[in-house]
């Protein structure tokens, strides 16, 4: 119990007073404390009066963030001396702060503004010149305006301590302290974008947002989910005038917490891309390929095709469950195919089986942060599942924290904990074909071909459980490494094994599962995290549809003639010769998608699909968590949600009224038809949900220009667009009380206009949101099940004289299909290359930068060589998704020769 201004409150003595007071809803100002990076006590803003006992009338000023909420603590927030002190701190910060709120991007969501108003400071007594700084170019994503800095040190602590970045630091002293890089240049850390939310003023702001800036109160927002990888981080995209303006973090205590990766934060620009398909079109075979674009005409034509024809549907791992299900309903259960290669299909199905059929629990990102020993097999997490890499950077601090506990240094006393622990790290072992950015915090790294990575994993499992298959023929070093890893895992309490589809090799994931299962067998609660590349990969896998090979069969065996492709560029799924023959066998190709690509270019019919920001749906992340993303804004007239297009096709074909009246009906039908997805119906409140009888507004109360926006088209005030699918409204009118967290997009509370207002929506700061969890886990481990150990482990990798095993490499910017359309990220994507071990390159007569010809799986590539000493001999690396390179997972042997000079 603690006493605050005469009242008693329950408090957790492990926390500091600032955390406790904020969690209790009190308004105590602060700057340098951040729930993810703890307290340092430098800003002095959170000053309160502390009293020795009930007789002490004088008290003394202490910083709430540095004072434990110990039993019996007595403080006053309202004490006049403390209040005056806090006001003076603001006055000092304001002395040098440029008064540029009207032109500062942060204005309206600025923590400094909020704290200034909260302390009551108003009049300026400082009459001297302010100190100023030069700004730096920090890359295409972050804008730098140092004059606004209040030296809270959050940026450098977040960037260096939390995110592990090295190219950003604090310089100089006294009132000239500077935060930036040693030299201008692109910030290297993949999580640098979080600076725009970590910075409490406008020093670091979203540069892409600047390109189409609007005030926070003028943004229309909805709760959404990132679509750029399989982790399913929660986001809040904001729109105005039909343009998506920016993406901000949406707190989810189990998934992303307070942060996003840069791909998730900045990839949104594809929604505004010039390559957006805005109208349906039908390419007529006659009249010089004339284009029909009237929706009804196109639909009628397609209905005709479907009526007489034998359509099959190709679903997508980046489309929502509902869209995929709608297509499945249209074409029929047995004529629905998953739009990925058999290789990918196998990988995804294996992930599902491994998570379901064993005792190891599929872990969330938050649980990954808490792991105290980690083994990563095959995944370059920083590029494939970036936020998981960020979680593991925190996980390596878990075991050393025991020292701090022993000396009773509270976990929130960040500087003291870090001083005590120094560079000590818990066990993290990273086994990948090539170097990764997690290597710097790994205890040991292991570079090998995928099959050897799998063999290492199996060897570790065997150390832990003799029922796991034996691995023979290991080198002495590898066997010793397996022993060390097993030892480290055995001596931990919450080990985590991570793998994924990145190596394109099932046995790597199997090996990971075996280690996790073996640990569970010894009574240790091991977690298993298997990453997948796309936002609904696992969801699509749970629909258990066959892959593209079967689709191709259906077309070639003439049991099908019409292809309906949902949100999928099949050229990124399989090699071109396979796809060419598949497309040739299809008489008609209908594509529903957002952006022009090779698929839409060759299709006869293209229907413009609404993006994630313009539609609702459910996605299942790699953890097996089904989460709902909500429509942020209504797209222009002809753009429609994919599932609605499909429904219209069904309607037109049957000449019947629409099967489903709203999204809930689709979800309900799906939950009934597919038992694995039964709980999806619980993910979101029904569309009829109301708060105090009202819908929940997507727009803040101060949203402006409702009539002015359309005044150039019509002076009549239009009715706000209807939203039959959700309890949200495209309006500023509606319920003002706190909605359930699934429906919560915009954090705002009186006096708290910035992202810090999140405090008011949490049951405790840094902890769960008020009102429950977001997302529903669909997969739980089979407790107590005898693990389904395999019988054989892969044979060791053997290099071949004239070929190299080509493994996929990944780039956070460039490998993923949609984010690469965002200008800032495209700038950061590398040029295509072929990575070779220097010895291999030497033997082939190739120097770094030289041109090489690669034949792989029937495709030819000409690429400059990049020397990568970390690659094992006989293994080459090919980056996925870069210009001209496969967008799909592959695995195979390739022939590499020096590029033939062009013949005269």
């Amino acid at each position, binding site marked *: 119990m603690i006493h605050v201004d005469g009242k008693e409150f329950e408090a957790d003595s492990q926390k500091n007073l600032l955390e406790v007071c904020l969690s209790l809803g009190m308004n105590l100002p602060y700057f340098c404390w951040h729930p993810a990076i703890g307290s340092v006590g430098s800003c002095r803003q959170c000053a309160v009066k502390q009293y020795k006992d009930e007789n002490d009338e004088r008290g003394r000023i202490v910083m709430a963030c540095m004072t434990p909420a110990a039993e019996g603590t007595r403080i006053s927030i309202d004490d006049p001396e403390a209040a005056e002190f806090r006001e003076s701190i603001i006055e000092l910060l304001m002395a040098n702060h440029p008064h540029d709120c009207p032109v500062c991007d942060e204005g309206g969501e600025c923590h400094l503004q909020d704290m200034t108003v909260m302390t009551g400071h108003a009049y300026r007594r400082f009459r*001297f010149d302010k100190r100023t700084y030069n700004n730096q170019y920090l890359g295409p994503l972050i804008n730098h305006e140092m004059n606004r800095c209040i030296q809270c040190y959050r940026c450098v602590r977040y960037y260096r301590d939390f995110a592990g970045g090295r190219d950003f630091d604090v310089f100089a002293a*006294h*009132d000239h302290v500077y935060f930036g890089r040693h030299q201008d240049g692109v910030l290297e850390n993949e999580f640098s974008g979080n600076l725009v939310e970590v910075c409490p003023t406008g020093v670091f702001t979203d540069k892409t947002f600047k390109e189409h800036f609007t005030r926070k109160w003028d943004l229309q927002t909805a709760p959404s989910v990132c679509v750029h990888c399989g982790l399913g981080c929660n986001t809040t995209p904001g729109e105005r005038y039909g343009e998506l303006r920016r993406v901000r973090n949406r707190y989810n205590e189990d998934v992303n917490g307070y942060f996003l990766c840069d791909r998730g934060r900045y990839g949104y620009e594809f929604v505004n891309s010039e390559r957006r398909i805005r109208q349906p079109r039908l390419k007529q075979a006659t009249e010089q390929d004339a284009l029909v674009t009237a929706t009804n005409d196109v639909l009628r034509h397609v209905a005709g095709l479907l009526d007489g024809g034998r359509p099959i549907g190709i679903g997508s791992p980046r489309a929502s469950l509902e869209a995929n299900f709608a297509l499945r309903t249209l074409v029929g259960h047995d004529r629905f195919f998953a739009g990925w290669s058999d290789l990918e299909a196998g990988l995804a199905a294996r992930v599902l089986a491994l998570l379901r059929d064993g005792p190891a629990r599929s872990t969330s990102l938050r649980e990954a942060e808490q792991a105290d020993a980690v083994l990563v097999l095959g995944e370059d997490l920083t590029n494939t599942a970036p936020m998981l890499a960020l979680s593991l950077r925190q996980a390596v601090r878990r075991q050393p924290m025991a020292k701090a506990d022993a000396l009773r240094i509270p976990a929130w006393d960040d*500087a003291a904990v870090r001083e005590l622990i120094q560079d000590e790290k818990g066990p993290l072992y990273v086994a990948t074909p090539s170097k990764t950015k997690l290597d710097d915090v790994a205890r040991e790294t292991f570079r090998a071909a995928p099959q050897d990575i799998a063999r290492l994993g199996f060897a570790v499992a065997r150390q832990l459980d003799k029922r796991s298959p034996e691995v023979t023929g290991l080198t002495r070093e590898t066997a010793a490494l397996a022993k060390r890893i097993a030892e480290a895992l055995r001596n931990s309490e919450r080990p985590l094994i991570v793998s994924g589809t990145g190596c394109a090799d099932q046995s790597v994931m199997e090996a990971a599962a075996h280690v996790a299962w073996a640990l569970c067998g010894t009574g240790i609660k091991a977690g298993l995290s298997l990453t997948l590349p796309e936002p609904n990969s696992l969801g699509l896998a749970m629909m258990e549809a066959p892959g593209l090979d079967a689709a191709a069969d259906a077309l070639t065996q003439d049991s099908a003639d019409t292809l309906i492709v949902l949100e999928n560029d099949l050229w990124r799924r399989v090699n071109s010769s396979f796809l060419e023959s598949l497309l040739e066998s299809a008489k008609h190709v209908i594509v529903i998608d957002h952006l022009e690509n090779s698929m839409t270019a060759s299709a006869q019919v293209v229907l413009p699909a609404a993006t994630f920001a313009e539609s609702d749906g459910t996605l299942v992340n790699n953890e097996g968590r089904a989460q709902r993303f909500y429509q942020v804004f209504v797209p222009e007239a002809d753009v429609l949600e994919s599932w609605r297009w499909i429904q219209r096709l069904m309607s037109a074909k049957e000449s019947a009224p629409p099967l489903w009246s709203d999204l809930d009906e689709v979800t309900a039908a799906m939950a009934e038809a597919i038992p694995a997805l039964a709980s999806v119906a619980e993910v979101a409140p029904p569309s009829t949900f109301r708060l105090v009888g009202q819908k929940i507004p997507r727009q803040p109360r101060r949203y402006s220009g409702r009539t002015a926006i359309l005044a150039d088209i019509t002076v009549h005030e239009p009715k706000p667009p209807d939203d039959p699918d959700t309890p949200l409204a495209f309006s500023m009118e509606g319920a003002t009380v706190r909605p359930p967290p699934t429906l919560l997009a915009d954090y705002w509370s009186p006096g708290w206009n910035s992202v810090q207002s999140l405090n008011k929506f949490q049951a405790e700061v840094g902890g769960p949101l008020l009102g429950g969890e977001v997302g529903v886990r669909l997969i739980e481990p089979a407790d107590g099940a005898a693990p389904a150990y395999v019988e054989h482990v892969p044979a060791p990798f053997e290099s071949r004289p004239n070929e190299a095993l080509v493994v996929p490499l990944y780039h956070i910017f460039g490998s993923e299909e949609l984010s690469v359309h965002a200008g800032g990220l495209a700038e950061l994507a590398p040029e295509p290359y072929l990575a070779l071990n220097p010895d291999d390159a030497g033997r082939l007569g190739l120097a770094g930068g030289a041109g090489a010809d690669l034949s792989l799986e029937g495709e030819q590539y000409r690429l400059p060589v990049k020397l990568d000493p970390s690659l094992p001999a006989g293994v080459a690396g090919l980056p996925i998704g870069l210009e001209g390179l496969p967008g799909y997972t592959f695995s195979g042997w390739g022939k590499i020769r020096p590029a033939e000079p062009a013949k005269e």
Partner: protein
Amino acid sequence: MERPLTKNFKTGGEPPTIRESESAGGYQAVRKALGGMTPEEVTEVVKKSNLLGRGGAGFPTGLKWSFVPMGEGAPHPKYLVCNADEMEPGSFKDRELLESDPHSIIEGMIVSAYAIQADIGYIFLRWAYKVAELRLRQAIAEAYQAGYLGKDILGSGYSFELYLHTSAGRYMCGEETGLLNSLEGRRATPRSKPPYPQVSGLWGKPTIVNNVETLANVPHIVNNGAEWYKGLSLTDDAGTKLYGASGKVRRPGVWELPMGTTIRELLEEHAGGMQDGLNFRGVIPGGASTDFLVEEHLDVPMDYTSIQKAGSRLGTGTMIVLDDKTCPVAMVHNLEHFFAQESCGWCTPCREGLPWAEKLLKSIEDGQGQMSDLDLLESQCKLLGPGHTFCALAPGAVEPLQSALRYFREDFERHISEKRCPWR
């Protein structure tokens, strides 16, 4: 009168070599402590002696040592750091010790390290003390050669490695925790306590930081006992003290005198009083970060308790004297300029408040001040008080300012009303 700290000083020329030091009694305490006392016994005698830290804070040294974890389970390596980063303006007493008898410091370190069972010692030396640097290096080399440093010292089983580290030159490095951060190669910003350096210090290990003069006292206490040490002083605070005086006195310098010598004796007898034509106006008794005392305080004994009762701090015991022909505003401005520049920039009040105070003082000195500036300066002094800031730099910085406003207010007001500095 016994002068244990300075008895081996030679005026001009080189400091005593190790042989000269030994024949004068040097390294006896090492033999005594390592030869026949337990570490706890050494700590006990230092505790009983009432030796107070000579770096400025005056914390009981033995008590400080007693918080170091000892015994089998204690973390290692443990560190002893000698704070030789003498950057308090007006202080030059440690310099005297380092230049004139470096072996006494080394001996003090070995005995103190033994008391806390430290494995490694660092002398953190101010970069500008080039002479001291050379002499310390020489002395350390001599001590290693003679077997007083290194493994198994004098066959006692106790090992101690000693390194000299020259700092990069910031006032904050003289702050105990700022020093530790700087020694680790990081920015010299302070740490919050708890945890104390005894628990988590250099690289997270148990560490004691002691001032040069403090360490110099230790061998004598071990050799002669606590009662002897207490007997050297005139008051309750024990031992002798290296006092200094600067400003426009006849003989600025450093003198070792019994603890509790009065300001008047120091000023008139040893420093020779004010120069011709000048009168005493005020004094900051312990270096720049202490409060002014004036005429009425001249008979206050210069020990920790008495000076504190008079409204100031003994600090380093090296006083800066203000004469009546020097502008107090200019003097305080100069001091605040130093402090503002030396602020590490970590916490808001010091980082923003000191430069503001400095700008106000400059404005007043330039004849552009306003009466409200004085109220503003006073409120800044209150704001930058102990506990309000992260470390003691700012509270120290405002001590001369707040006392100047108290004792020399008319001078400030004249600057403002006459729109100029009346001393120029």
